[in-house]
């Protein structure tokens, strides 16, 4: 599949909401700066104005996406409400059609990601960190939620940018994580192998790690889908491709037959790992989580939809890099 920037530019924003795609299963978690399904009628997110700490909901402009023209619950547009200040995101509303659909929240001031930074509309929700493996940064948590263990299958989708892989010698940033402990749970992370400008992506299921085949450049729109279908493991009679990582359409697989072991309901994170460590230094536009395996055919359709909408170059794979 090849989608070039010129093509995606010409078709930008002409795609349907991705959850309206025929046959697409309903995710449990669905967060975005655009409307993910036409039937969703709520706000996109809630922001705190840095100057006086007033909070307001932000709605989709033209029923489509969050822009500076979006109306807010204050009665003003986002541009008027925030002005030259910073808009910290306190809540990312869940657009899922499910009855139980927890929002992603951040209740601590110093950990709230930024939609607008000193008057500048960010290219996605910006997660600010001082960097490093154990440094603290911005993140969301999804309270009272965990991936269910009754079915080990799941699909995690993250779309955004990593600003820089700037910590040499090996470091990790959390993208979507649900860990009881390290090696107990499921998570999608990005890892650094000693270079400031390239990184790879990993889906971990319990202690089993599957990495992308090559490194990917920093500061580029990146679509990462991690999925697990235990029935595809050879132990379950499958073809041995049960654990799958797709980055901008490039796929790697692993033969894994394992339980996830997620017990706690207070450790689902976006933008960091177990509690608040390994913070993301980057931005995020979309996160979706299914409690099932989304077929590879639908994953490809999703990638195209996201790539066109967010002007993502699916040809930007991978400068081969010596792992």
């Amino acid at each position, binding site marked *: 599949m090849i989608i070039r920037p010129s093509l995606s530019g010409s078709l930008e924003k002409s795609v349907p909401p991705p959850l309206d795609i025929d046959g697409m299963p309903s995710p449990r978690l669905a967060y975005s700066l655009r409307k993910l399904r036409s039937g969703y009628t709520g706000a996109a997110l809630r922001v705190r104005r840095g100057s006086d700490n007033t909070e307001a909901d932000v709605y989709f402009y033209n029923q489509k996406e969050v822009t500076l023209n979006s109306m807010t619950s204050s009665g003003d547009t986002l541009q008027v409400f925030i002005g030259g200040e910073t808009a910290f995101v*306190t809540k990312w509303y869940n657009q899922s059609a499910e009855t139980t659909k927890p929002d992603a929240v951040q*209740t601590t*001031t*110093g950990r709230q990601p930024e939609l607008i930074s000193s008057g500048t509309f960010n290219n996605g929700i910006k997660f600010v960190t001082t960097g490093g*493996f154990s440094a*603290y940064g911005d993140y969301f948590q999804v309270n009272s939620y965990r991936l269910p263990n009754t079915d080990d299958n799941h699909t995690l989708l993250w779309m955004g940018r990593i600003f820089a892989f700037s910590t040499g010698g090996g470091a990790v940033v959390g993208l979507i994580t649900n860990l009881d402990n390290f090696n107990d749970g499921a998570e999608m992370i990005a890892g650094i192998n000693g270079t400031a400008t390239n990184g790879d992506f990993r889906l971990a299921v319990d202690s089993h790690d599957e990495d992308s085949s090559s490194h990917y450049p920093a500061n580029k729109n990146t679509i990462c889908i991690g999925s697990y279908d235990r029935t595809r493991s050879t132990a379950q009679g499958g073809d041995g491709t049960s654990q799958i990582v797709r980055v901008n359409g490039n796929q790697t697989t692993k033969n894994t037959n394992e339980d996830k072991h997620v017990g706690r309901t207070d450790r689902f994170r976006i933008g960091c790992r177990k509690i608040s460590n390994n913070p993301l230094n980057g931005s995020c536009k979309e996160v979706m989580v299914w409690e099932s395996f989304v077929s590879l055919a639908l994953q490809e359709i999703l990638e195209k939809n996201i790539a066109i909408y967010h002007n993502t170059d699916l040809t930007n794979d991978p400068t081969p890099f010596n792992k």
Partner: protein
Amino acid sequence: MKYLKLDSIDGAEQRSRELWEQKLGRPKLEEDETEFMYSFEVSESNEGGSYLLIDDDGMILSDEEKLALESEVLYQEWREQYQPEAVQMEREELESMG
């Protein structure tokens, strides 16, 4: 980053909530999400208390609290003693990704 040690397990959470209302100058509105001024860490056991993580100039703290602010070194020593599981697992994970 500076660190403020609280003697009780829930001390840091409680103080963080108080400081946010102090900053607001009013009670938190029910519809607002923001609840805490600073993030905090708690001991993995019933001993060791908790820590507030001060990521700004800390001017909102009381004079007594400002004088009690600790450095990264002391905080990490506390983590070694009272969050041993988390510290060990972070090390193992770092080694696996290196």
